[in-house]
């Protein structure tokens, strides 16, 4: 996998998992002046979720999850894709637009720094908080000898 694809996977994932409100707000300065052609307007559908028997064995279908997908093309000709969990069309549209702009070398640094990085930090902080809450419930049981032998 090449380097661009690797970092693209990374930013797509951060944008998909960001809280919609923060994403829209942070993206605004970069998207305001940019022109895009809509290739596939935000569209809500399902993705089937697969799991494995015993966690490691053969696959089975667990159920579906709602997703929203969107494709746009930037003025420079880059195609931006977005796939997000849930049903938030403005979120999917902004994420697709940012994905297109992030593929332009001149813009990447700024967007990475002012949109992607803060969103990534927010996600990491949320994960840390949940991990800390969980850690406080770590338990160490003692077994007691019961009566006779």
């Amino acid at each position, binding site marked *: 996998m090449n380097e661009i694809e690797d970092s693209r996977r990374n930013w797509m994932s951060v944008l998909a998992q960001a809280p919609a409100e923060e994403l829209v707000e942070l993206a605004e300065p970069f998207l305001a002046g940019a022109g895009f052609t809509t290739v596939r307007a935000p569209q809500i559908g399902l993705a089937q979720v697969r799991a494995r028997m015993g966690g490691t*064995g053969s696959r089975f279908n667990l*159920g579906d999850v709602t997703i929203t997908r969107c494709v746009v093309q930037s003025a420079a000709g880059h195609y931006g894709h977005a796939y997000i969990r849930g049903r938030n069309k403005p979120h999917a549209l902004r994420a697709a637009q940012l994905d297109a702009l992030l593929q332009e070398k001149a813009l990447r640094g700024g967007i990475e720094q002012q949109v992607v990085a803060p969103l990534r930090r927010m996600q990491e902080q949320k994960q840390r908080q949940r991990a800390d809450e969980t850690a406080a*419930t770590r338990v160490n049981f003692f077994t007691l000898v019961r009566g006779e032998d």
Partner: protein
Amino acid sequence: MYVAVKGGEKAISQAHKLLAKRRRGDTGLAELSVAQIREQLPLAVDRVMTEGSIHDPELAALAIKQAAGDLVEAIFLLRAYRTTLSRFYVSEAIDTGGMRVERRISATFKDLPGGQVLGSTFDYTHRLLDFRLLAEGDAETSSPTARDSEPEPEPEEEAGPMGRVLQMLEREGLLVPEQDDDQLPADITEVARSYPCDRSARLQSLVRGDEGFLLALAYSTQRGYGRNHPFAGEIRVGEVSLTLIPEELGFPVEIGTLQVTECEMINGFTRLPDGEVKFTRGYGLAFGQSERKSMAMALVDRALQADDYDEERSSPAQQEEFVLSHCDNVEASGFVSHLKLPHYVDFQSELELLRRLQSETDVAQPVEEQA
């Protein structure tokens, strides 16, 4: 057989209006928002998502509100909505081993790599009504912190990766291994089940199955109807990554996380065809925090493996067709509820028949009948 009827439009629309009014309750009280249901009744939301077969907390909360708290009705609403959406993608199999664990317990080993964490649980509560919740605005909502509590003596391998309990037994050759046969799993939403069916179809059916029905069947196995000697090897709750590989991109993208509950049961050992003796296993998995459901599912999954171990199918929980064709509460409540539809003609013919039979009997035995 029921028949079509006409009319009643006015009464029906008035009945629906009344439903909306009753659902709203006392208008002197603030209306419950969908976001409140999502945030404050998360376990109801989790059940509706699991059995409704769509992971979407907001939609599940909406369904619960619309159904006035009738969860089976809410599940029906979600299933109906599901049919209006197209399926764009199939995810990569979720990796529960890589879960960001929020709860993880084992009833088979006291000390395990990664330790045991209780997370949020009803276990160890005294099941006494908490009247502080009745007095508004007095609920405990601060985060637990390690500093709050007496530090638990650190388990030796604390904070290591949480290896799977059952894999440790697999490695020692003590447990029937799970092997990936790399087959495309059955999809009961596309192709109706036929019996006997594949384990992938069974598990998919059980995930959607009614929690109460599966719980009762699981309980029946413990009471001796298809006993399978279970131990809760490991129960874990937490977030797993959801990854798609969209064709148009050709590379995987992690698009979010899902909270799931997984239960792995270790069941009674048996002699396998190759002569080895090993523990057997059952698997349960559900959206959200659905512990009772995933435990019941794991017990029933094991009961349904009877043929694999040459066990006699003598009890209800072991009867594949019986369990799978009756576990879906949307199908079940649909067929039971259809009894409310007009059966006037059908019933008239039965009534006629009974009257005729009775009058024939009257003619045959007039004296005795009157005595």
